[in-house]
């Protein structure tokens, strides 16, 4: 029974098996052997192994195994033989050998031959791909580094090594947080990096400024993403350091230039405000309010420079912030600290292009001044500056809870040229004044304007 079972096993295992006698003559082989090496029983049994199939098994490595290694050891495992067989081509085989000690068969050898060619080829291909990757990595100017799951360096580009003044060997196996003087050990960065692999959450634009041994002071933008190698389940992280030092410097230069210009403009506006203030000293009381209005108009223009320099270069100005600044300045310049009139803002997050911000600011300034001047004879009340998007337009509202104004106090003949400031600014912005609604307390002035971002409309220009 046991004899039959053993031969059944021999015939069904996927490894090629052969037995040799002490003279290296093949005494038996299994089906897997015949299939793998495209031969049969009659060509095989009784043949010396080296003579098999036009001596294609006369391989130096196999001779070493059979003649030098086996005689001294009971078994050998994982002996690798690479050989170009005439019939089946280049093969890599893993040979396990075992001496058989059985009566009548002393000195026999059992060889199990496993064809690992494909596996080896895949491994070679993977290694080649990795080398290719490494050579590409080395040609990229931006420093980059590949990290293992535990944040240790697997490979680093030449640019990265230069950055820290270290060698590939010194970088390998170290954590990014341990590099240099531990200057990259930043909690915010660590937090981001810890999420890249488990949550597959790449990050971009983490900015870090530092002094490097060779490069000096530099600003880097860090990006990281998960990378997977084909045929490998392990994930690694690619961390790229984009050098943005020059860009950053240009931005700083532009900012300091903007600050310089803003400083000069504000100083000049301060002089104008001063000139007006000087006039006020010798002006009869009834005229003082007019001069004060002039000062707040100048203030409205001045605030723009703060907001423009604060917004992105050439970008739009946040309308709600602008309205708040105007409200704040008007409160400070027109109302005493003891005043019972308050100015508030209730605006959506809309934007306005810098070109149209001046007439917009002056328009709000005029309407608010009108409200303060006419709506509250008892010196008590509330003004709300509002802006919201309605249909495809901006609706600007200046609402007070005062005694109500006549239309001529709000605006004079808006459709004709000239008239007053309100009419001029509304025309300049390409907008229109909506008719007053009945039954509202106080006065609510509603003005529809084209969306204030983007080029002015044709009507706006024609008006």
């Amino acid at each position, binding site marked *: 029974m046991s004899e039959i079972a053993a031969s059944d096993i021999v015939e069904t295992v996927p490894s090629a098996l052969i037995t040799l006698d002490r003279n290296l003559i093949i005494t038996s082989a299994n089906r897997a052997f015949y299939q793998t090496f495209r031969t049969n029983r009659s060509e095989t049994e009784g043949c010396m192994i080296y003579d098999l199939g036009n001596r294609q098994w006369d391989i130096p490595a196999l001779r070493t195994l059979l003649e030098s290694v086996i005689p001294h050891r009971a078994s050998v495992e994982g002996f690798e033989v690479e050989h170009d067989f005439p019939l089946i081509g280049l093969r890599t085989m893993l040979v396990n050998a075992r001496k058989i000690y059985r009566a009548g068969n002393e000195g026999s050898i059992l060889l199990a031959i496993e064809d690992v060619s494909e596996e080896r080829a895949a491994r070679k291909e993977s290694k080649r791909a990795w080398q290719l990757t490494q050579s590409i990595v080395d040609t990229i100017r931006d420093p980059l580094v590949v990290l293992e799951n535990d944040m240790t360096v697997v490979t680093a580009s030449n640019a990265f090594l230069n950055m820290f003044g270290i060698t590939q060997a010194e970088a390998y196996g170290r954590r990014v947080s341990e590099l240099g003087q531990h200057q990259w050990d930043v909690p915010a960065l660590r937090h981001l990096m810890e999420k890249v692999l488990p949550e597959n959450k790449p990050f971009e634009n983490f900015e870090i400024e530092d002094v490097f041994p060779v490069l000096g002071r530099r600003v880097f933008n860090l990006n990281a993403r998960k990378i997977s190698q084909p045929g490998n389940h392990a994930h690694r992280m690619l961390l790229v350091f984009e050098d943005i030092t020059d860009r950053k410097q240009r931005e700083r230069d532009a900012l300091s230039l903007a*600050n310089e210009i*803003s*400083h*000069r*403009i*504000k*100083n000049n*506006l*301060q*002089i*104008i*405000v*001063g000139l007006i*203030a*000087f006039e*006020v*000293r010798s002006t009869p009381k009834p005229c003082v309010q007019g001069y*004060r209005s002039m*000062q*707040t108009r*100048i*203030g409205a223009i*001045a605030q723009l420079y*703060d907001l423009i*320099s*604060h917004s992105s270069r050439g970008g739009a100005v946040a309308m709600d912030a602008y309205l708040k600044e105007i409200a704040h300045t008007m409160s*400070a*310049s027109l109302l005493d*600290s003891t005043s019972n009139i308050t100015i508030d803002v209730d605006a959506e997050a809309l934007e306005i292009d810098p070109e149209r911000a001046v007439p917009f600011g002056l328009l709000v300034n005029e309407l608010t001044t009108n409200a303060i001047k006419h709506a509250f004879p008892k010196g008590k009340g509330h003004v709300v500056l509002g802006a919201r998007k309605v249909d495809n337009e901006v609706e600007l509202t200046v609402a007070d809870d005062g005694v109500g104004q006549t239309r001529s106090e709000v605006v004079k003949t808006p459709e004709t040229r000239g008239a007053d400031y309100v009419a001029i600014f509304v025309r300049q912005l390409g907008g229109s004044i909506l008719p007053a609604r009945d039954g509202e307390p106080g006065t609510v002035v509603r003005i529809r304007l084209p969306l204030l971002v983007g080029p002015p409309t044709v009507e706006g220009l024609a008006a």
Partner: protein
Amino acid sequence: MAVILIVEDEIFVRELAGMFLQDWGHSALFAGSVEEALQVLKSATTIDALFTDIYLKKAVYGGCDLAREALMLRPELRVLYTTGNRATDELRALFVTGSHFLGKPYTPHQLQTSVDGLLQV
């Protein structure tokens, strides 16, 4: 009424500020640079408050540096800064504790309100 040292490199702006302070009954002292201001501060003159521009000639944060030195000389001194630039958090971080700020352009009315606030306890 108080003695206020005005530090401002733009003469017209400085003179006018002084004029208004005097209108309201204060006394004004004048300086056009950090160095001039320090000379005044090192003298024996009574000074209650320092009203300084921040960008003084070439010194971008001259007013901030001045206020710090001034406080070492006179710890009781009140400080009001002014500048044409935006008062960013970065800038405010350079201000001495308890100081006030007034942006340019300011009206006489705003200056009066700021000075009143500065001189209160």
